[in-house]
């Protein structure tokens, strides 16, 4: 296919990236990402396809402060305009994490499990600022609802910010600087711990 007089290289459809070694005798390209090997019919095309996925992941995360894995995967597929195998997407996300472009924020769920939220390294300062703001708000109140926290952090209440602010509070809970009082209500454990220590001293 020619375009503007120049030969346009063939782009490997992302769904054609395999995670199993091709059984045919033909030559193929391979990229090893952690414990997953990706295969394609040509090394250059495979490298270009992996880079395309990585750019989509990092581009999507740049535009969002904090994302859950399923939301990230959905938007990455939309951005690429193609379907991508889950294992392929996971391996390339792992590459972005390995190189430090993408970071993980651990968040506690109401059931005591750990949920991983993802953010781009360029958004780290913003994440830290919001966490510090929420931490100081929380210490001055007996309880804080997610709605109140959203108002403190995102006064414009943009779409999706309620979920983000809840995960930021859940990260404070993971660190032990907040506790779940209810699914949408957080408190600081500080006064209760101080009381426990003071009664012990008496």
């Amino acid at each position, binding site marked *: 296919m020619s375009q503007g007089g120049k030969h346009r290289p063939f782009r490997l459809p992302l769904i054609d990236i395999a995670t199993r070694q091709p059984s045919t005798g033909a030559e193929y390209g391979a990229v090893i990402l952690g414990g997953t090997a990706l295969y394609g019919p040509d090394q250059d095309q495979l490298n270009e396809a992996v880079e395309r996925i990585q750019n989509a992941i990092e581009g999507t995360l740049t535009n969002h402060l904090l994302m859950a894995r399923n939301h990230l995967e959905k938007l990455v597929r939309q951005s690429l305009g193609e379907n991508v195998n889950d294992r392929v997407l996971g391996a390339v996300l792992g590459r972005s994490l390995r190189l430090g472009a993408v*970071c993980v924020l651990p968040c506690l769920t109401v059931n005591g499990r750990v949920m991983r939220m993802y953010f781009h390294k360029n958004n780290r300062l913003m994440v830290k600022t919001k966490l510090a703001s929420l931490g100081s708000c929380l210490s001055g109140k007996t309880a804080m609802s997610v709605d109140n926290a959203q108002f403190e952090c995102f006064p414009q209440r943009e779409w999706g910010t309620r979920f983000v602010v809840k995960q930021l509070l859940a990260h404070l809970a993971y660190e032990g600087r907040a*506790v779940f009082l209810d699914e949408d209500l957080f*408190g600081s*454990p500080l006064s209760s711990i101080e009381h426990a220590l003071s009664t012990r001293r008496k």
Partner: protein
Amino acid sequence: MPSALVASETCLLTDQGWSMAGSVQGQVYLTGIDRHGHLTRQEAALSDPIKRPTRAMVGTDAALGIFDSETELILKDGIVKSANEIVEQAHSDEIWFENVITCPSFLGERNYADSFVSMLIQAAPFTFGDAVALRCRSRDVQDWETVSSAGWCRFHKVASDVFCLVTLSVVRQLKGLDLCGFVRSLSRAVWRNSEEGCEEFDCLKPACSLWYASALQILKVGHLFKYDGRQHSLLVRVIEDHTSHLPLRKCGCAFLDSDSAGSVRLSWTSGSWKPIGSGFLISGR
């Protein structure tokens, strides 16, 4: 005079036990390996912190540490690779290390507790003079009665979470095997994942896991470190495992992180001596 750039969070084996490089300044005695492979002390110097854009996490099934991306680590055959190169090649089967996590016997009666207390203060969300509060990973803390009967801690429930309140002055008096026993009991109370039957530590805050691994080694409890994946891991899981292990350990996980707390330059006098950083042998230039 050989020197190496290490991250502020790299744990060095000082006379007080594992201490973060960023918390030690000036002249200090460190334990390392001499040309005969013996653990020996040598005087070293640490510079003031230097700003750095990234840090690297390198982990095996015996130890994990945070390093500057330029820190050069010694592999099994004496080959030297920077943490950055290790991250690039972590999927390779060629990256093996000799880890040193035990404390040398000639330091056995020294008081290590102060360093461990410093690590606890850094790990805790709240400190209150003589006490720190740590959130227990599991809400059903196993053996809490046995643990709290020792007198150095107690448990306090806030909403659905349990906090371990540790009395630091009691911990500071512990030495030798008593301290090892305390580190093991505290780790099982605070960092235990009761569903998976292991202790879980944050990979990017590995100091407490290093103390735990050292305590287990001294108590002759076999253990393994497990990671989420080779490319990145949020948590390191410490699993008791009594099968025999090879003296050499394969790289299990290595990645870069953009949240660097800075680095310090570590310099020492003898070119044949290698300092131990978070259980890994560091090469100097």
